[in-house]
């Protein structure tokens, strides 16, 4: 097992890992000083490229490459950190912000130095009051000792960090919607081009990175990109925090090396399926990802491999369902989430996601019709033509296809569960017990 990059401090200092003092005692801000005093911005950028680090928000785009898209000569430019973690089943960024906010702050400062940006924004999901307070506190502490502000570490590098508390819309986790929301506009995804790297926040070049991505930066700067790249797999280097939830004995956040298999994640870290049961299905990478059944247990946690298998590692949320799980009901609950969180901009998502929810609800309510399976497929197809992953889409952003993925992937994997709903053998929604219908509740502090 490789060493822990992200969670070591909170395990070592469970009672004060979020304080500046504790952070200082654990190599805190050494990466920043190393960067600004001993390296050029280009060298920092090169280390990040060498690390092979891929974005931890969901799309898994190589971070160093993303930084390279910023036009050379346009200033100011901004770094925006996406802390709007809202994907059902995902709870890692919240833990990082609550337990290790200084690594986020340090990572931001290092990244800003590499990007030659003098202003970073942290956009934190509105529901995460505790995380917001910890991050604000960390920024204040860092400012008090001169890590944030003018002439950092005695150099001429200056950087401000603004912490923004969002209003709790899932869509604002989509980077262009986030930028609109941050600038005070309606949180609607924007059409591309222009891309944020060219025209982002306040129409200036902007890099949007995930919280966990940022938290890797201190380690990479201290130890070098090559050392980071030695962990994990060749195309998915490093460690990642996986948010394990559902029918396992020990749900929680686990930082493990990429390349581990799902089976190992469930058995070693999750301590097996509850009540000695077996895995029937699992969501490999957040609510947007197409589902897998037990035949995929030995697939490694590797972004490219998962892509080839027809799903994604996404935000790192893995939800396990045992043999008793009511698949259509669980799917209905996810679709309900997406329908509720659709921004309403594009017709197919605004109308289609809601319709999917209503069809599923009607089926679960005992009014399924034989044609409903074809209808579900076709409605999905009108939002995400072809029903493949990565998805084609008739919408501006990927939320529309995300709403369809649980539906079509489970109809393919578990057709009998749906057929049961159209033959009238199902009990009504109101009378059936909700237990087990939704992914089990888990806490970030697990």
């Amino acid at each position: 097992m490789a060493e822990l990059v992200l969670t070591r401090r909170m395990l070592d200092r469970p009672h004060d890992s979020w304080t500046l003092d504790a952070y200082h005692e654990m190599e805190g801000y050494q990466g920043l000083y190393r960067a600004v005093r001993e390296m050029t911005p280009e060298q920092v950028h090169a280390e990040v490229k060498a690390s092979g680090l891929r974005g931890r928000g969901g799309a898994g785009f190589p971070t160093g490459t993303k930084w390279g898209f910023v036009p050379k000569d346009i200033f100011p430019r901004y770094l925006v950190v996406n802390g709007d973690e809202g994907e059902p089943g995902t709870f890692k960024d919240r833990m990082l912000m609550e337990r290790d906010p200084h690594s986020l702050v340090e990572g931001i400062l290092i990244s800003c130095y590499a990007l030659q940006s003098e202003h970073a924004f942290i956009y934190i999901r509105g529901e995460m009051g505790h995380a917001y307070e910890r991050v604000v506190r960390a920024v204040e502490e860092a400012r008090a000792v001169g890590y944030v502000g003018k002439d950092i570490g005695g150099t001429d590098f200056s950087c401000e960090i603004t912490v923004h508390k969002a209003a709790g819309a899932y869509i604002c986790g989509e980077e262009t919607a986030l930028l609109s929301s941050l600038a005070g506009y309606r949180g609607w995804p924007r059409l591309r081009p222009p891309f944020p790297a060219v025209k982002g926040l306040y129409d200036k070049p902007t890099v949007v990175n995930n919280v966990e991505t940022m938290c890797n930066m201190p380690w990479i700067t201290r130890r070098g990109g090559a050392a980071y790249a030695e962990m994990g797999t060749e195309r998915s280097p490093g460690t990642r925090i996986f948010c394990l939830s559902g029918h396992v004995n020990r749900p929680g956040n686990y930082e493990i090396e990429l390349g581990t298999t799902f089976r190992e994640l469930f058995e070693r870290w999750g301590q097996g399926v509850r009540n000695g049961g077996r895995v029937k299905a699992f969501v490999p990478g957040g609510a947007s990802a197409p589902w897998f059944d037990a035949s995929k247990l030995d697939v490694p946690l590797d972004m490219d491999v998962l892509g080839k298998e027809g799903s994604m590692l996404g935000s790192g949320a893995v939800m396990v369902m045992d043999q008793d799980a009511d698949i259509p009901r669980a799917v209905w609950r996810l679709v309900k989430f997406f329908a509720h969180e659709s921004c309403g901009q594009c017709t197919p998502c605004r109308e289609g996601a809601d319709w999917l929810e209503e069809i599923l609800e009607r089926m679960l309510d005992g009014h399924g019709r034989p044609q409903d399976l074809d209808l579900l497929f076709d409605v999905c197809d009108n939002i995400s033509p072809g029903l493949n992953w990565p998805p084609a889409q008739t919408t501006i952003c990927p939320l529309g296809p995300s709403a369809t993925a649980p539906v079509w992937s489970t109809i393919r994997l578990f057709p009998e569960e749906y057929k049961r709903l159209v033959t009238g053998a199902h009990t009504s929604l109101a009378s059936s017990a909700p237990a087990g219908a939704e992914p089990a509740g888990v806490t970030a502090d697990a």
Partner: protein
Amino acid sequence: MPENDTLSTVPISLDGREVQASPGQLLIAAAEEAGVYIPRFCWHPRLRPVAMCRMCLVEVEGMRGLQPACYVPVKEGMEVRTQTPLVKKVQEGVLEFLLLNHPLDCPVCDRGGECPLQDHTMSFGPGESRFVEEKRHFEKPVPINNLVLLDRERCIQCARCTRFASDVAGDPLLEFASRGNDLQVTVFPDEPFSSYFSGNVVQICPVGALTSIPYRFKARPWDVTIAETTCGGCAVGCRGALSETRNRLIRFLGVDNDAVSWGWLCDKGRFAYEYVGSENRLTVPLFREETAAADAFSEVSWAEAVERIAEQIQEVKGAGGNIAAIGGARLTNEEAYSLSKFMRVVCGTNDVDCQLDDGLPADFVAGARNRAVINDFAKASVIVLAGPDLKEELPVLYLRVRDAVVNQGVPLFVIGPPQSGLTDFAKKVFDTPAAFDPVLLPIAGDVVLIVGRQSAAQDAEAQSTWALGLSEQLGERVKLLPILRRSNVHGAIDMGLSPSLLPGRVTVDDLEARERLAQVWEGEFPPDPGRDCREILDAAVEGKIDILFVVGADPLTDFPDPVMARRALERTSFVVVLDLFPSSATRFADVVLPAAGWGEVSGTVTNLEGRVQRVAAKVTAPGQAASDAQVFREIAEHLEVDFGCGTPEATLREIAQVAPAYQGVSLSRFRGKKGKEGVLVGEGRVAPRTSSPFEKDARPLGNGFRLHVGRAFWDRGTLVSECPSLSGLRPGPIVRVHPEDLAFAGITDGSSVRVLDEDPAGRLDLLRTVVADERVPLGTVSVPHNQDEPFVIRVGATVTLERID
């Protein structure tokens, strides 16, 4: 969208066919020009593309996934496929989605029969719905202002109305609320969609979600006939289409033309058609009964009226008396020409004036060289606006200036008025022309100089003198646009309804023009300029005018000194009023003749750019009302003058023959694609006079406030007061004052004040409600005109404010 200036085109492949398109042009527009209609809801050629409805998705070779044709620009060699099975499936899918929650109440929907959603469903839709669930429900319909209703059940969330409100009108009062399936268009709480342009959202709504209260349930599309015409509301000359059913005008819609209005209309222009069908219209000729009390008229026949007027003219002319005419800005070019010819040929006088001393010197308006057109705004290096509040007086011109400034980034300098729709976008605002320093202008590029009358209390000659001085200083770079307000006032000046001008932008002493006229006009008229409106009324007060024609004008309301106007009319022995409605002037008339007006008379009009456009007759005039041109011709023929001008077409031919600037204007030039933009008339041969310029320090001395009198969009004018839907909208008798001035004077916002001219001879004494407005410069009292009883406006007046407790 601004037209792409580049003339070069590149080949693209459209469904396997090679077509030419302009690079940068949006695919959806390029395809349409090439004859391929890509279905759309949210895209509108005059709005910023948002690609929300997803109806226009097409396949583009080399681009991943489906692309919205309304967002992707044309690139050379691109291969576009609009008819593939995938595209068709997605189109059916989007339509099915849009119809899920649409109530399908087409039989009771105003849009039914001309609805893009209906049409697209027929052309591109799946044929049937698979939706068996409950539709979304909203209260229906809810008013968003006094003119427009919103039915959220019908709405397809295309954002056309919200984009129009924020991007085009600059009134961001329509917005989306909520999200996802609850997404709905809404106004803000307690904040109606108070925009002068609200009717446009009804027109651009692709469904029946927004309907206009005046038109609601009035007709079905298949029951109306439509004619394209030009709005007569002001001098901008917006193009529109007039709907008629059973000889009543029921709707006016904007028609897109690139030169002027882009399809937009202001609410006054859009809804004022109601006045045409008003019950208060004059319908029969009236004669004052000599014995009876005032205001007692008896109905007479046209023949009798014409005979009596003709006799009167003969008598006055025989005795060497004076005949004069004021008004004529309401008329078409052909009618104005007839009046102009009638006054010269039949009455032998140059005492004609279509302005009521409330505009600009006619020689300045007709004589401006190097004129700007509206499409020059966006190309200019700077726009200097020295004139009235365009939003209040020439609303669609405001939209075009706003577009140039806000969307194209052209800097704007505003010189007065105190509070204007454009001051917020201006680089700098100056109270008076004297305060403006040309050093601020960019050193290269065209300067568009828009010049109008800022205030009825402003010296118009000083204003035009200043503009000419600035033009001279800057030379060829300046493109001048003199702007007047009243509907066809520019056309009327061009037709010679000015004491110093003859038809075609030439002076009355222009020998060549007189020679040419002599071949067509039988009759003598003096080579010297006649009296202008003020001089005519002055002479009338002194009893020197024997016959006064008041043509579509009300000097008791619009002349700056209504007291004097009243005395003038009282002392004129024979007053002939031609109008659509009884007015304060008709009370003093000896003969009142019912005129046919807009929508009833065909012909041409000329807008403030000098653009000639056609107007159409769509309904017959009520009762015996007749075209003014017909009246003048009949009187002339009664006096055995061979007047000609029997039809508008014949009159236009004669205009083209005798009026230099109108040479070559003919009906054939209004046909075809190019004809849609109208015909620009040529430059005149008028050397504008100059007078003494403004004093450098224009601030009044003493303690008084400078008086500003501007027009408000909604006023007591016929266009508003005779329209049931509009008459309640005017702000009423108010004055606007800067809050600091109010605080200093100890007057609270909303209280009653008395506005008194400091000069007792000024006779201004008004009771008004005061409104604090920080856009009014310090030291100024701004009074909107024609909200209440008319009052005396002295040029350069200073006034005091008194609190009324």
